[in-house]
């Protein structure tokens, strides 16, 4: 039963394992504590962004503003943190609140404004990036060394980044998805009318799903702040596409209802490690963008290639 539940994640898990094996084969050095930490750090922000995307995708929507929230929270954290530990902690909480608020705004417009999520989040993508740019017109800022170390160092082979990710998953994601709200999120994604008839408030569920998405995106922004030790409102631009790709590669269905956290997280690490593997394989950084784009497109096509074998074309159409 547990296998069945995680079956959709299989592609991403196997893909990630194969990639790691390949990485170790090309560059055995990554099996050092340093190498493991570096690799873990690279994918954690995207993994958190993928969670943000997943919770919205589960409702049947999509959040194109994930990258913008990541950039906005990154800009806020790096601009206001300063060096005083107390203030830094307060700013971190404020940053989480800001990201959550951004998600709340998305949810409010989608759920109660009854406008399509694609167009809403495309518009808020511009709004949030704009606010981030007002806060931090140029990349920079000051991030306390202690904070950066706390999230990016490691205990031997155990990177703090993974602990942070597991903490977010264990303390926020799992309790959320096991609660009534989590059940309702999956229910409305699977069958809106059915959920409505069963007494679930579709609008309220959507609102909280987007809000939670904002929270997870803020976590990604905070981790990114520690990782880059600077703030850049536009740093999140690539996270929108990559988070959607990680979610789809991780076996969640755009259109809602199906998906578990394992797949998208593995998908996120897969996409992030890919760059390192390409570098290690001796590919010029010049081709990085092209190759990433190509691989992304190929991965999407392969993940969907079962459609080609379908004998009944109609079944593919009416999801």
């Amino acid at each position, binding site marked *: 039963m547990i296998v069945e539940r995680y079956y959709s994640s299989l592609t991403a898990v196997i893909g990630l394992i194969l990639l790691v094996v390949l990485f170790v084969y090309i560059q055995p050095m990554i099996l050092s504590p340093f190498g493991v930490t570096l690799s873990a750090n690279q994918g954690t922000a995207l993994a958190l962004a993928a969670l943000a995307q997943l919770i919205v995708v589960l409702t049947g929507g999509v959040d*194109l503003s994930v990258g913008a929230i990541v950039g906005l929270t990154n800009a806020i954290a790096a601009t206001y943190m300063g060096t005083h530990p107390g203030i830094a902690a307060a700013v971190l909480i404020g940053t989480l609140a800001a990201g959550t608020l951004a998600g709340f705004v998305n949810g409010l417009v989608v759920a109660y404004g009854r406008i399509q999520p694609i167009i809403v989040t*495309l518009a808020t993508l511009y709004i949030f990036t704009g606010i981030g740019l007002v806060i931090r017109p140029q990349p920079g800022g000051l991030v306390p060394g202690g904070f950066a170390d706390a999230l990016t160092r490691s205990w031997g082979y155990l990177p703090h980044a993974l602990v942070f990710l597991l903490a977010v998953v264990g303390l926020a994601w799992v309790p959320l998805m096991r609660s009534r709200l989590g059940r309702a999120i999956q229910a409305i994604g699977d069958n809106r009318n059915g959920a409505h008839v069963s007494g679930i408030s579709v609008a309220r569920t959507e609102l909280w799903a987007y809000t939670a998405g904002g929270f997870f995106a803020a976590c990604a922004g905070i981790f990114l702040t520690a990782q880059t030790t600077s703030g850049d409102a536009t740093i999140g631009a690539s996270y929108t*596409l990559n988070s959607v790709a990680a979610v789809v590669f991780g076996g969640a269905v755009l*259109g809602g209802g199906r998906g578990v956290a394992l797949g998208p997280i593995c998908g996120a690490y897969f996409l992030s490690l890919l760059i390192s593997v390409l570098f290690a394989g001796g590919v010029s950084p010049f081709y990085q963008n092209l190759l990433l784009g190509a691989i992304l497109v190929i991965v999407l096509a392969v993940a969907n290639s079962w459609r080609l074998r379908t004998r009944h074309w109609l079944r593919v159409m009416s999801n």
Partner: protein
Amino acid sequence: MNTATPARQRTALPAWLFQGVTVSYILLVVLFAIAAAINPHYASWDNIRNLLQIGAFIGVIAVGQTLVIITGQIDLSVPWNLTFSAILMATLCSHGYSTATAVAAALASGTLVGMFNSIGTAIFRIHSLVWTLGVNALMQGATLVYTHAQPPRVDVPPIVRALGSGSLYGIPVPLLVWIAAGAVALVILHKTSFGRYLYAIGNNESALFLSGVDSRKVYLGAFATSGFCAALAGIMLTGYSSQTYLGMGSDYLLVPIAAVIIGGTNIMGGSGGYLGSISGALIVVLLQSVLSIVQIQEAGKDIVFGTIIILLLLLYGRQKLAAR
């Protein structure tokens, strides 16, 4: 779910008054009146000319985007498809190819990218939102590799320059291109079977398929048109700014989509049309120009623009409650 018209049977006003197209034209007139009241310069022919010229770039892209959105899909690959086509044309010109060859190659490249979009969407059945975003990233990479991150500095051929900024009998050439493209779009949508198929896909693809139409070919046509329009807009923009640069497409992702949606086309597909997209494009251009006159900085402009789009959608882009 696919009807854009809210049910208003209880009011005495006729139903067509509440259609997206009508509302968007009323909005356009109101906005223009407000702008002209604040600054009389707005009503001058010079300014209107200028607005129409800039609106043409958005309007041309919106032709393809309208077709794609009516099928219930979306084309997010416009920015880098546009940039790549424009840079391809400029590079070919700098290598001594004739202008006609260069322009044809750019249009072909744009169309091919559009066809590639439809492969993922129609055959692999990947949501176009994800697939075209991926293709956009692919084209970004391709552009950077192709140009070595340095767009060619060449003299833009006079014909291309005319296409972007020339004028014929006092009418800007881009406007003429827009009128031509818009006329083609209206004919395609309302007078051809292909146009009917576009609406049919948006409403019920299975039904269309069962009627014996290969819906994959319809997607192919819609996305290829969108790619072609992006390339055409790229060529016009090159002529308008007399250069190519890496960021030239970045303003053309949200804006044409906003124009289509403001014009009353349902983002889920199945209803709407190009007539609305025209007023949508003009509304968007008007808003942009008002914002730049108020002299808000670039970031502030994005905030205000995004907010206005949401407000407009709240005004008349809402879905029916009963549908959920």
